[in-house]
């Protein structure tokens, strides 16, 4: 009998507590800094694309979701810094398993995985991201937890994360620095 009362008292106590449920999408919980989401292609500071279309990302990809068709850089109006550039760069997000091997394979740090995971679309075709989409900043940004909470060299992490406009201790709004 006493045991039953003790049991229900736990239930009663919790009835009057504040709920822990987080309302998504009203509240978007910051992800860990190393969370791997949507890919981002990068440019050099002078505006040239870092990607030279070497297809090493496609070679590394276990899901076979990257397609690269390279071409010779035009003499006028170079696209990338190397002899070649990626004329077509596509990632099929429906197949991608976000393993980050492409990021590891890239010899030019041209592709990295960001924090964004809100990629749902209403058609499969729309999930094939083209080079323009991957070069552009994501429309919706996913906040990231402060890197200071984690055991990573902070300065290095700041530098890397600076490329994504994520929320960090020094950049709480997630806006470009």
């Amino acid at each position, binding site marked *: 009998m006493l045991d039953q009362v003790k049991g229900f008292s736990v239930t009663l106590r919790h009835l009057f507590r504040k709920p822990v449920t987080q309302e998504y999408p009203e509240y978007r919980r910051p992800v860990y800094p190393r969370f791997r989401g949507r890919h981002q292609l990068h440019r050099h500071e002078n505006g040239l694309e870092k990607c030279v279309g*070497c*297809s090493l990302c*496609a*070679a590394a990809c276990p899901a076979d979701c990257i397609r690269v068709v*390279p071409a010779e850089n035009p003499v006028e109006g170079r696209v990338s810094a*190397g*002899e*070649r550039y990626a004329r077509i760069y596509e990632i099929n997000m429906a197949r991608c398993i976000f393993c980050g091997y492409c990021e590891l394979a890239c*010899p*030019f740090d041209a592709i990295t995985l960001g924090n964004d995971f809100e990629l749902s679309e209403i058609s499969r075709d729309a999930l094939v991201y083209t080079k323009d989409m991957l070069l552009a900043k994501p429309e919706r940004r996913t906040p990231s937890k402060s890197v200071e909470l984690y055991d990573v060299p902070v300065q290095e992490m700041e530098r890397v994360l600076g490329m994504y406009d994520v929320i960090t201790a020094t950049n709480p709004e997630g806006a470009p620095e």
Partner: protein
Amino acid sequence: MAATETNLVTVTFDGRELQVAPGTPLVVAAAEVGIEIPVFCYEPRLGPPIGACRMCLVEVEIGGRAMPKLQAACTMTTQDGMVVRTAATSAPAKEGQDAVLEFLLLNHPLDCPVCDKGGECPLQDLTFRYGPGTSRMTIPKRTYEKPLPISPSVLIDRERCILCYRCTRFSSDVAEDGELVARERGARSVIATFEERPYVGAFSGNVTELCPVGALLPTPYRFKARPWEIVNVPTVCTGCAVGCNTWVTLREGKAERVISRNHPEVDEGWLCDRGRFARHEPLVERLAEPLIRDSSGLHPATWEEATRSTAQRLRHVSALKGAGAVAIVTGGNLTNEEAYGWAAIARSVGARTASGPVAAAGEWERLDPYAARIDDLDRSDLIVVIGDADVADRAGVVDLRIRKARRAGAHLAIVSAGGTILERDAGSFVAAPAGSAAAIVAALAGAGAAPAGVDLADLGARLAVASHPVLVVTDPIAIALIEQLAHTLRLHERGGVLPMPRGANERGARLAGLSGGGDAVLAGLESGEIRAVVLVGLDPTAEWPEAERWHMALAQADHVVTVSAFVNSAVSWSHIVLPQTVDHEREGTVTNLEGRIQRLRPVTKGPSGRSDLVAIAAIAEVLGVPVAPTPAKVYATLAADLTVPLSWSQLNGRAPLPSRGREARAPKKVAAPKAPPAPAAGRFVLVAPRPLFAGPAVERTAALAHQRAPWVMLNHADADALGVAEHDVISVTHAGGTHTGPLRISRRLVAGAVRINWAGAPATGDATVVRS
């Protein structure tokens, strides 16, 4: 340690003992006991090793005494009691190899991500497997302008070059054109051509496969695909009758490149530039659907309509005009199975057939008892080439095989009007009047007198004593004459004749039942006897002699059916046009000049999306002849008919050539040929054999435009008499039109002859030559 056999020596590699013939390069001997010694420059096909790259350094001990320095395992050969320690077991060898790799990479840009060789690069692979892993290089590397075209089809990147000299050895020792050389010396050496002019050898593309780094790369393949994105399909080149084995690189449904699939008995891993670069592209110019002519011209039709109409017309003509009123003509641009299908159709309508322009010059089976294999050239001690056409023009890489035999000691004798690329290093060259190949063959066979001024005594004496002579006749002369010469020389007992068919699968088409020659068909068309003609993969108005007569003859025919990949001038006379598939789109078998049956695999789909055999089967079905629509089934029937001892599945890989009986019977005496008429005063004898770089695919390939650049060749005395100098632009007017190009002066071209490289010219005749 005594060798078990007197002619073998004992060598120890990393503790593993091996009995091997003395004088074997250590890299080869080591491979026999499963030890890899890495190499860059070593390539036995390029002749003796030169030890340029030093990658193969090993420590060697002979008779208990260590050699004072590390030795290059490619140039060092086996001796009895040798103890070899490779980098795997010897610290000095490992240190030496690391140092060599460090030196090789000293100026190498390591731009593997942008380099097309990346992923299939020996330098990358060997650095990864044997290299030190890190670089100590901090100073800037040497730079050059890049990429530079050394020809419109090959690009050079001098920064990547490690100066292994494979390409220059190919140029000087295999193709023997000597156009690609190392200029300057030491660290300043660069691979270059004279004055950066294009490297125009017929085999220049091979250097891209030989290059162990990304320094020489094929222009058409630049930035097309990486090695992990491609599928290499094994197939056979159908450019000429050699049938070089190839891999066709496929990416995203497109055939991007052709590389060699080394068949040692056929091509030895070489390809000519035509086989490597010529493409039936762009697809937009291809015929994609059948066309039927009505009163307002050719209109698209369905396959059903076109094949039914073709069959009905053939049946109608044959029923109305009797047997022999229909002709089916091919130039050899089809598979054995397609030829079998057309032959079945021909039999059912009583059609005449043709597989080459001249019937008498196409009777290849008469040479069967005397036929040589391509690799007979390797064993020959005397090679006799008779004819004005170049061997390379008729049978691409056979030219390289002949050069190899000559370097190995065979005597190369050439009887021609001169001006061919093979004659410069020939052992003996006999200048003969243009177009006299038939007379010379007859004279050698004792069936006639040699043309005036041609001394064949020396050649005859050599032929009489040679132990393994190989005879090559490059001009289309009557096979009966060659047979007679072969029998006189007893070539069924020693050596042989290497047939030189004009079409890629001319032999196969004949064997499958499309025998006969275009000359008879042309006569039949002109006399009105033949009322309907089917042209299969052939435009006789462009590819065969007597172009003008063919034009008129086709215009007279009631029904002309053309099976063609492109719109050509024969199409303009056609009533029905059926699209054809070409090279990499075909499935089936082809028969090469030796009679070797090799398998074609489909790599891509033609624009019509339909195999030719399906259309043939549809026509045959209307005519009530059973022809299976799949190559494997047709081949089974064909092989049974021809008693070919190889099944469809045995044609995989490198096709064997079953040995044939060599029972020769004395041929009937053939009348000596007439001498070609002498040209009128002030006119020149035309020498215009069909060049290697000709045909619809070559014409559509930008990377081969320079190979087709027209030129005119005259004897130096004639040039002096005309007052023209090398590179002057000369016009040659002959029955087929006017050909204009820069002058090349030859000291061996016979006086009074003019040689041109124009596919549309009549092979013989006379011409006027003027400076334009």
